[in-house]
């Protein structure tokens, strides 16, 4: 029964799933609203299907952006669910299914480092987070214990890239051939490499099986080796008997009492019938995806909150950001006609180089930008002995090979399959005031809900970071004994884009940032809105700064911290 719910959680991905798990584990009754349908990788994922089994050899289309077998339902363009732009370029990735984006994501789960929470103190730019690494560290431990991950020896961690402790992390898989060459080249450049912390099991955990080193994680994992929210959070939460789930529920308004200071529930569209429904609870947690959280708050306007709910600071929708991403495709001549061997591995990078320049070294280098970037061999862009796909594998092999056909073409394919590969960088972004969303006054989605209007602009600092990233990739290629086949940064520049279009790394966060004051932020350090006491935001929206570490682990750690806060308040107030 709806009136028995203590907490409504909107969204079932990394943040919402974690929230539901932590609350129900503590005996709290939770109602979970998910805009999409039920989805369970155990039955819904297509793992071993080959490209030739799918239409168009499984290549991406406007319907399935990352390929036919990608576990994601949604993508950048959804019929009847548009968004608009007020400046710059931004693409909004969406997932409409139980577990949200966690079925599709790369499972990379690095921790933020101590410096990452105090960018202002370090650089005088942006603002600091309202908590420190020490505050969040216990939550990183707890999250990692639940999701399971492999990672490097924590004693070998480099400055500001802390790693999971030995009693939590599992052993990483061996590096691939190209990754060994990558490690050797990095060593020459004075850059340390190690296993990339990744939420994939190499030993069984909580009834989930170990990875079998085949198939791409973005298809979903039916054996539970790769973490997803349904397997690790929602199923155990359902087993407590404390979780109710409504799927096909598109939340669009937070309901409040007459004072406007207490949330009473959520209004949503039932996608099956198109009806508008209301549900009520003592607490409301938004975790529908960062941009959607801001949209819901801005659309929850009332007399008491004319600019949107929890928006007395005017900060809702502001300071959104995405990870900078760029890559090179390179040719390793020693690997021409190399003996075939299986290097599918976990489908994600096995090793990486965490950001290596700090303090004086960074200054000396002239790296004038906040944060840094990490280096990896890209398992899915260009060649190597990876699963053949048209664009990612053969498109690169044919790039610039004009007029090739016949016997020469066949020889070419044998020579270069396995000797081409992508190397990539993921970089932070300097959060700036020119990246934000508002509500489009004219455009509505198919249910009549006003849609977000995005404004995006990379900063000069980002440009400097991009140039640095590109330069390092070229040095890396040289040290790997490789020649450059394609240069994504250069191509983007020539196409008038910057690195990539905003949103295209699918790490869009911010929009309800947390802070130390109701004047400059939407949330306090427990992800609770300053204006509405019993309203929390638990997806990527609370992020303050954007560093080179993938955001998912920090989303989950902050969500767990918010859940603890709710549990404490429920106990204290005996509500």
């Amino acid at each position: 029964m709806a009136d028995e719910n203590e907490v409504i959680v909107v969204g079932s991905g990394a943040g919402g799933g974690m929230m539901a798990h932590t609350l129900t584990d503590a005996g709290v009754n939770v109602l979970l609203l998910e805009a999409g349908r039920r989805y369970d990788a155990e039955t819904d994922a297509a793992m071993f299907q080959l490209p030739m089994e799918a239409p168009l050899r499984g290549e991406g289309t406007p319907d399935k952006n990352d390929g036919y077998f990608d576990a994601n339902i949604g993508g950048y363009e959804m019929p009847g669910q548009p968004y608009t732009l007020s400046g710059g370029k931004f693409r909004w990735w969406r997932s409409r299914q139980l577990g949200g984006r966690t079925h599709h994501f790369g499972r990379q789960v690095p921790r933020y480092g101590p410096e990452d929470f105090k960018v202002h103190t370090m650089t005088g730019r942006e603002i600091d987070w309202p908590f420190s690494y020490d505050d969040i560290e216990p939550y990183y431990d707890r999250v990692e214990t639940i999701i399971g991950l492999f990672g490097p020896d924590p004693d070998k961690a480099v400055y500001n890239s802390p790693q999971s402790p030995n009693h939590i992390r599992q052993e990483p898989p061996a590096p691939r051939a190209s990754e060994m060459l990558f490690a050797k080249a990095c060593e020459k450049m004075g850059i340390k490499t190690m296993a990339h912390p990744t939420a994939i099991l190499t030993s069984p955990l909580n009834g989930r099986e170990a990875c079998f080193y085949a198939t791409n994680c973005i298809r979903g994992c039916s054996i539970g080796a790769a973490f997803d929210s349904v397997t690790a959070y929602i199923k155990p939460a359902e087993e407590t008997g404390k979780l109710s789930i409504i799927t096909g529920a598109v939340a669009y308004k937070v309901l409040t009492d007459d004072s406007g200071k207490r949330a009473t529930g959520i209004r949503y569209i039932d996608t099956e019938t198109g009806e508008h429904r209301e549900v009520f609870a003592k607490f409301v947690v938004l975790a529908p995806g960062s941009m959607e959280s801001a949209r819901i708050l801005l659309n929850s306007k009332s007399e008491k909150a004319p600019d949107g709910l929890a928006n007395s600071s005017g900060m809702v929708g502001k300071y959104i950001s995405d990870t900078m991403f760029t890559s090179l495709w390179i040719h390793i001549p020693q690997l021409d006609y190399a003996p075939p061997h299986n290097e599918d591995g976990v489908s994600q990078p096995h090793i990486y180089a965490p950001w290596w320049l700090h303090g004086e070294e960074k200054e000396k280098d002239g790296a004038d930008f906040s944060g840094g970037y990490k280096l990896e061999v890209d398992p899915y862009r260009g060649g190597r002995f990876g699963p053949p796909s048209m664009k990612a594998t053969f498109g690169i092999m044919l790039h610039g090979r004009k007029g090739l056909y016949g016997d020469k073409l066949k020889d070419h394919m044998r020579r270069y399959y396995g000797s081409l590969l992508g190397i990539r960088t993921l970089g932070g972004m300097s959060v700036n005031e020119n990246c934000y969303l508002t509500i489009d006054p004219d455009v509505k989605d198919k249910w009549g809900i006003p849609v977000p209007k995005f404004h995006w602009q990379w900063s000069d600092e980002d440009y400097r970071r991009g140039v640095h990233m590109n330069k390092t990739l070229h040095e890396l290629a040289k040290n790997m004994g490789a020649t450059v086949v394609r240069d994504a940064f250069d191509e983007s520049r020539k196409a008038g884009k910057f690195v990539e279009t905003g949103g295209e790394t699918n790490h869009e966060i911010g929009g309800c940032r947390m802070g130390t004051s109701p004047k400059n932020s939407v949330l306090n350090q427990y992800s609770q809105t300053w204006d509405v006491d019993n309203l929390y935001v638990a997806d990527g929206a609370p992020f303050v700064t954007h560093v080179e570490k993938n955001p998912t682990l920090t989303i989950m750690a902050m969500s767990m911290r918010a859940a603890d806060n709710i549990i404490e308040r429920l106990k204290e107030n005996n509500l």
Partner: protein
Amino acid sequence: MSENQEKLSPNRRRVLQLMAVAGASAAYLNNYPNSGAKAQTRQKGYGQDVDVNNPVVTWDKTLNNNQLLNLTVIGDLIIPTDDKSPSASHLNITDFVDEWVSAPYPEQEKDREAIVSGLDRLNIQANRQDARFFHNLNADQQAAIFDTLAKSVEAGSASADDDFFFERLVYIYVGGFYTTDEGMADIGYVGNVPMESFDGPPEEVRKLLGV
């Protein structure tokens, strides 16, 4: 791990069965719908929520018989038989090209335009040698025309249309061919099998790289 393998093996079996069926339908040329139309009728995409375990091509193939016969010849010029793998026509890759260019998505619609008009230009060249269609020419004539086209593309002297026509034809044939079992075996893809552990590359590969 053996339990996993059992769970997954029906999938592999199904793939192999599908492969066998595809290989057996050699009389595929008779089965094409002959639309004869250049413009594509509005077709339906597969949508965003597909049943990944039961993939279905939701659109009709639209190339006409002469276009398919032309493509079959060209496909075997692009990917001929040699001692390691068969030609494109042995694996019905032209059927896949038809699926590709008939799809109701922007990338494929652009390819369709490029390929249909490119085939028309080849027919015009055939007309000059008193053949109605490119496929009516003898093998030497076909090879000579195609080689001239390829050389002009290589030299950068081809028209933008010819350049794109050639590039996309090769891309789609390569994509279709090297994603079949025979194509993957040719280039040496040996993955997509469950393994107990991942131990890194074999010694001979490490030696090549000096790692």
